[in-house]
């Protein structure tokens, strides 16, 4: 069973958001990395780029698949996890911590309220796989 920490917000595209003041830290879920298999490359935006909620901000590649990743919230990228260039496997090994992807300054912190809770996300993935 995939790990779904309680303190995070989740999107239906399998991203997670950790709120830290007006900053959102974003990555993909344990379930998503498991579905993808060995991650070999992560394409991320540059700091300073702006995205609206549900925009594609990059992609994750395994050996034989590519998945786009979407921002669950609106805002400006303040930092990206450049260590994923050399060690994309962090997304597999530690999706919620060392495998984080971008930090964004949120335009509207209220947006996270419309995301799924851990329990809702778990139900969602269960329903999706049936």
């Amino acid at each position, binding site marked *: 069973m995939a790990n779904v920490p309680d303190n995070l917000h989740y999107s239906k595209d399998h991203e997670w958001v950790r709120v830290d003041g007006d900053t959102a830290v974003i990555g993909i879920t344990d379930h998503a990395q498991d579905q993808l*298999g*060995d991650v*070999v*490359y992560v394409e991320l935006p540059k700091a300073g780029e702006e995205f609206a909620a549900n925009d594609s901000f990059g992609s994750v*590649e*395994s*050996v*034989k698949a590519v998945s786009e990743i979407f921002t669950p919230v609106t805002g400006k990228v303040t930092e990206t996890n450049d260590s994923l260039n050399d060690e*994309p*496997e962090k997304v597999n090994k530690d999706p919620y911590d060392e495998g984080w992807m971008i930090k964004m300054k949120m335009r509207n912190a209220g947006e996270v309220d419309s995301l799924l809770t851990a329990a809702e996300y778990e139900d969602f993935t269960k329903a999706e796989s049936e």
Partner: protein
Amino acid sequence: MSQWTNYSIVMINKVTTHLSPNEALIFERSQTGRAGFMLPALDVDELSLDEIIPREFQRDDDLAGMPEVTEVDVVRHFTRMSTWNYSIDQGMYPLGSCTMKYNSRLNEKVARIADFANLHPLASESESQGALEVIYELQQHLAEITGLPGVSLQPAAGAHGEMTGIMIIRAFIDARDGKEESANRRTMLIPDSAHGTNPASAHLSGFTVKTIKSTAEGLTDLDHLRELCAHGDVAGLMLTNPNTLGLFERNIQEICRIVHDAGGLVYMDGANMNALVGIARPGDMGVDVIHLNLHKTFSTPHGGGGPGSGPCCCTKGLEPFLPVPRIVSTASGSDRIFKLDYNYPQSIGRVKAFLGNYGMMLRALAYTLTHGYDGLREATETAVLNARYIAHGLLSDYDKPFNGDPMHEVVFTDKRQARKGVHTLDIAKRLIDYGFHPMTIYFPLIVSGAMLIEPTESVGRQELDQFIDAMRSIAKEAVEDPELVLNAPHSTRIGRLDEAAAARKPVLRWKASAAAHAS
């Protein structure tokens, strides 16, 4: 039912008495001062290099790193490496959608006739009449086989033929509707089961792709097609027939009608023509333009991944848009003259330098002429019979997701084996131990765990039986000894490679320093 025999596989340890398995890279074999060439001595007055080419334009690295080896080294190097390959000449190579049929040596001999092999592509037309006749005659035969009279042999491969065909559709619509009106028609419909080249080719021609669903039967969903065609934006449909599930789209006439009524054209991906040659013709079905793969249906060698050749055949109405130059004949009978004709102002242009992969045209014409009209049909019949025989033989052990009778290829899945944790990839790898090349796996994408099997006509009954036996034996192993399957192959020089590590830190070339580091 015949007697299915059980194969027992001997585990082979990776030890050997021969050097072949350890053949290094040529760069690692290189020794300063070895030479594998000899040219005649220079017989003209030599000037110092600086006098003819300024120093700043001369190479200054002395081609460092390029190998220095002898002819014996090269022959042994490639002969040893060749033993690591599986090939059609060794046995059945049932890659679905690839049509791995026998490559006749006679066709190779034809392609090497000096009067063709030594002919320069810019030789004048009057001095290359024989070569042009070959092109002209092959065009005639392909027009007859497809029922589509306009033919260009210029595209170098299937995907290149697709690009050509889709650009022809675009040019036709631009001409028909006018540029402005035509800008509203930029949607290309492609079934979810299509080859990846289809959407990529459509994109190159400036189209947006919309995906058509397949029905539970594995055919194009007519209702969905009608719905997608209702908005006036459809330029065309790209359809493989038989489709990539090996099923003939029996509603093909209706499909063509729907697309035509909506103002679009129908492009057929001819990858699966080995199921149709001599039996039915795309032109008669309502198809407007098609590409063929000479390296599939017409037996030109696959060569470890090319060269291909992807002729494009189309209706009379689309002919003005074919690439230039066209190869035409001025008269008939013995005094006819073959010419290059550039005078097609509506042409999409040139898609390749010179006239295409000419050597493949020679082989394809030789294939057509050696088979003749009855042989072409017999090849198709046998290809379909062989696929149906496999479909029947595997039904008891593997999940067949679609009930329809397949044509020249059949799709199975790993659904039953997956319950034990054995997946398509494992089955494919285990098949290697039984001496067969695996089938196409995980394609089409709409079938989970797909195994697409295309035996072609080049397989006899005994070998079909051996293949069926092998597959059934693997199904048994998947239940009784799944580890054996999961760790396959056991009989090859190397085991499964770590593809993730290879993609994370790609090493795409040999470097002197890396080699020094390794030793």
